[in-house]
């Protein structure tokens, strides 16, 4: 198994930094920030060369030079003392950056040390350090900095020290939680087990993992320090010997630039501060996106509209399965040749390809296959709930005489829950944590039946919860007060609230204990018999399928492996995958039989084999399977399988 796993993993880049640089270069925010920062650092380092005048010297300045507007000799004009604003601007960059970097260094050192120690040692040390951090966090920074600097001498190093000593609180908190997160990782525990000392573990195992987050935070701290320094200088607390942007603003604002309209003396230094802080902000945000990428995709982003009217016509009418229970049962759902792709830029990953099945009222279809075979994607596609990148690229979904793929968002909204409801896999977070369960059930009822009498709402909710064995008193509780199994059952109750015609249940009983599981299955069976509810049951449990389902759709690698009524599937499966699945399931009537498992994994959808998708794992595969993908062969009315072995036997 381990060998196979290794083979399936994508090639690891030569160095972790290669991947980092590639992503960094692609992040426009980070690159823009870095370039802006480099420009100002360059100006600061070579200030003596770049600045046309010496901002400290009054040589050659005459009274007519005061507050002159920008000109060829003075690009940014002159200030209240007749000095060149551009030269002061360049030298000001130097002091702003010095204060920013050194103060941030102090803050990061203190905050980092506190954070690592608190996170690593825990207990009393953590309690003390974090309480102290909370204390410092709540005391307003700037007044304290102002007092410190006002009481001591406002020299450059005093300012650096004070800003640095007071600016470490956020760093300590962030580093602590990161340390907590990494300290229980396997290799840290392993290092400890072989007897490495605490100091060694912190320096060699914790610090490298904390470093990325520390760098992002440091960039933010630098920008805050630069802002603090300029604010102090503007308030008149700056080193009289060191020109800074804040000091230039203090002089200009205090010495009449406003009243004589000398906007250049006010705009230039402020522009410098904005430039540096924006550069750092962009760089910090960009770096964070690179180090901790997140999808920025959500459920309200407009999805891709289905491409419809495609190949559905070629769908063979004879492949339609008949109802197993009643001859006159109406077909409630007819899925024809549905294909779903995930689109990313120009690349398409086909997650589901040409899947068809029929569902009759009062019937239960089992959808089986290993994880990653496209079952959940298909279910989401039925209700047009695919994530933004997902798109139905082919096929029809016929419900009640309408093709669901051609409906508008408003029309499909009316069908959702009222006609077709869905219970998601792993319902732990499927309920809104800040609303009571009863409230969330009521919402669904009122949405689809606005005329539902207010008085009956409560009793209806109690009735629904009662169906799944939840006591009435729990209706006003929040989801976090429910156990995992209760949440799952509450989801089922909610799914039944509008008396839907079809219920899609995506592994609804996996989180439940056996007793409750049986109870839920009985309930579903009863609803099917009494109300004619049709159910699509996505499951791994072939026992449940055998016991309850009328038909079975076996999916593998996004395609139909085999589809037939339940007796055919269990008694004469044609596809080797179906046969292997059945062998892997315990049969109580034949306890002597050994359980088999299928070696390997289902194929990755972005790296499908050229031939049959199951060929690499199939014990009966031959040359043709590797090169040619089998089409769906019809073995008898309502029984199809996609296997070259079925070709000769097909009609």
């Amino acid at each position: 198994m381990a060998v196979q796993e290794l083979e399936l993993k994508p090639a690891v880049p030569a160095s972790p930094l290669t991947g980092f640089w590639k992503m960094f270069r692609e992040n426009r925010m980070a690159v823009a920030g870095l370039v802006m920062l480099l420009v100002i650092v360059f100006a600061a380092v070579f200030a003596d060369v770049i600045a046309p005048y010496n901002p400290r010297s009054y040589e050659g300045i005459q009274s007519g030079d005061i507050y002159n507007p920008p000109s060829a000799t003075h690009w940014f004009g002159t200030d209240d003392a007749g000095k060149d604003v551009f030269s002061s601007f360049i030298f000001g960059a130097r002091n702003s950056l010095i204060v920013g970097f050194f103060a941030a260094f102090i803050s990061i050192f203190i905050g980092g040390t506190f954070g690592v120690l608190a996170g690593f040692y825990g207990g009393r040390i953590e309690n003390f350090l974090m309480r102290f951090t909370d204390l410092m966090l709540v005391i307003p920074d700037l007044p304290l900095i102002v007092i410190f600097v006002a009481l001591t001498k406002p020299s450059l190093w005093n300012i650096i020290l004070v800003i640095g000593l007071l600016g470490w609180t956020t760093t300590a908190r962030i580093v602590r939680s990161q340390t907590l997160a990494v300290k229980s990782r396997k290799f840290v525990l392993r290092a400890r087990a072989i007897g490495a000392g605490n100091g060694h573990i912190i320096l060699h195992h914790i610090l490298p993992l904390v470093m990325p987050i520390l760098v992002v935070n440091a960039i933010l701290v630098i920008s805050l320090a630069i802002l603090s320094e300029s604010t102090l200088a503007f308030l008149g607390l700056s080193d009289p010997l060191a020109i800074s942007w804040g000091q230039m603003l203090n002089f200009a604002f205090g010495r009449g630039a406003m009243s004589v309209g000398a906007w250049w003396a006010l705009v230039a230094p402020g522009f410098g501060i904005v430039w540096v802080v924006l550069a750092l902000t962009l760089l910090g945000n960009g770096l964070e996106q690179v180090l901790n990428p997140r999808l920025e995709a959500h459920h309200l982003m407009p999805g891709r509209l289905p491409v419809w009217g495609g190949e559905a016509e070629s769908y063979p009418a004879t492949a339609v399965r008949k109802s197993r229970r009643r001859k006159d049962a109406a077909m409630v759902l007819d899925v024809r040749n549905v294909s779903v792709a995930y689109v990313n830029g120009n690349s398409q990953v086909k997650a589901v390809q040409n899947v068809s099945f029929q569902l009759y009222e009062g019937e239960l279809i089992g959808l089986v296959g290993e994880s990653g075979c496209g079952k959940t994607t298909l279910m989401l596609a039925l209700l047009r709930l695919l994530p933004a990148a997902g798109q139905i690229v082919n096929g029809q979904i016929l419900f009640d005489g309408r093709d669901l793929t051609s409906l508008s968002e408003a029309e499909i909204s009316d069908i959702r829950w009222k006609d077709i409801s869905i219970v998601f896999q792993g319902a732990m977070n499927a309920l809104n944590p800040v609303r009571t369960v009863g409230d969330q059930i009521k919402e669904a009822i009122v949405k689809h039946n606005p005329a539902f009498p207010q008085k009956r709402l409560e009793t209806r909710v109690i009735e629904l919860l009662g169906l799944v064995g939840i006591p009435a008193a729990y209706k006003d509780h929040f989801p976090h007060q429910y156990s995992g199994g209760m949440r799952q059952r509450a989801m089922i109750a909610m799914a039944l609230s509008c008396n839907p015609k079809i219920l899609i249940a995506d592994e609804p009983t996996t989180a439940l204990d056996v007793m409750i599981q049986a109870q839920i299955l009985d309930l579903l069976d009863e609803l099917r018999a009494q109300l004619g509810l049709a159910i699509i049951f996505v499951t791994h449990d072939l026992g449940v399928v055998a016991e309850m389902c009328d038909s079975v759709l076996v999916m593998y690698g996004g395609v139909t492996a085999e589809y037939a009524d339940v007796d055919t599937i269990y008694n004469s499966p044609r596809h080797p995958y179906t046969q292997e699945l059945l062998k892997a399931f315990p049969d109580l009537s034949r306890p002597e039989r050994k359980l088999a498992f299928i070696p390997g994994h289902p194929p990755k959808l972005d790296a499908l084999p050229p031939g049959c998708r199951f060929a690499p794992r199939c014990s009966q595969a031959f040359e043709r399977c590797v090169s040619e993908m089998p089409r769906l062969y019809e073995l008898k009315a309502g029984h199809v399988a996609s296997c070259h072995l079925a070709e000769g036997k097909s009609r």
Partner: protein
Amino acid sequence: MNSASPVGLERIVPLNRYRYLLNKVGWSVFTILFVLVLNFFLFRVLPGDPARALTKDPRMKEAAREALRVRFGLDKPVINCFDSLTPIKLGDCGVNPLETQFFIYIKNLLQGELGISYKTNRAVSEILVERLWNTILLIGAGQILSIFVGIALGVLAAWKARTAIDYGALFTGLVAWSLPTFWLGIIILFWGSSHGFPIGGKATPGIGAYPFLQQAGDIARHMFLPTLAYTIVFMGEYLLVMRSSLLDVLAEDYILTAKAKGLSAFQILKDHALKNAMLPIVTIIAINLGFTVAGAIQIEAVFSWPGLGGAIFEAVESRDYPVLQGAFLLIAVSVILANLIADLTYTYLDPRVQSE
């Protein structure tokens, strides 16, 4: 049944909530005490207090010097065992604690006395109370506006994620966040002064003689520019936080459930996403109170607004330490209390906190 009975739940929840509340209140009290102590020693440990400098003036007569020392309480030891902290001078540990500078400071505080301003000779408490209201007026208006605008733009950006609207809002937020408050104030003042807005202060001198409505209108005109500056600066962060918080919430499973229930995008935002996404905002507002004060100091300095921040600015200029000390104390205590209120609000907004 594999979970606690309903009866058990009802018994546990309130108990935990009281303990949580008590914990928070207790912590705030402790923080305030810490600030009181810090505020006292800061001004005793750091050099540069002019009262002390004054008594060291060699030209002064001994009697006058003594009178000054008595007036500022410098004839008493700082606290037991220490006569002075800068430079450190050890003293008698057995003195009556009530006769030390520290306890006199505490006693005066309890009576609402914060000392006498060096500059105006008025009681500091009197100056600050009047200024506190002006600051609350300005911060209140600015906070409400920036929260409202920032959240609205943040919601729009997250909803329309990865569109031009989103990128525009994101860039606006980042730039607004990067603006130095005082500089934005200067630019707005520069623009406003040429468009007929008053260039500073809270009211036109002599307006007190006019009817109330006219007075209110005059104050509103004076408030316009500083509030605008304040709103722009603080809107940026609320926008960024709201956008990121809502993006997280909208990717949650329960939003998919809401969509599967047939709710419209607007209903999902209103009934399922906003409240959850607002929770981090409450925390940010609380954490930001310190920054808010920093913003107020700068804006009040630029617009000569007679608030606490302006008091700090003027006190720094004239080295008026009693006012500086009093203003710091008042600001710190206000921020701590506001923080407590935000914490308690959070408890009511998020049902999960109560039983954790």
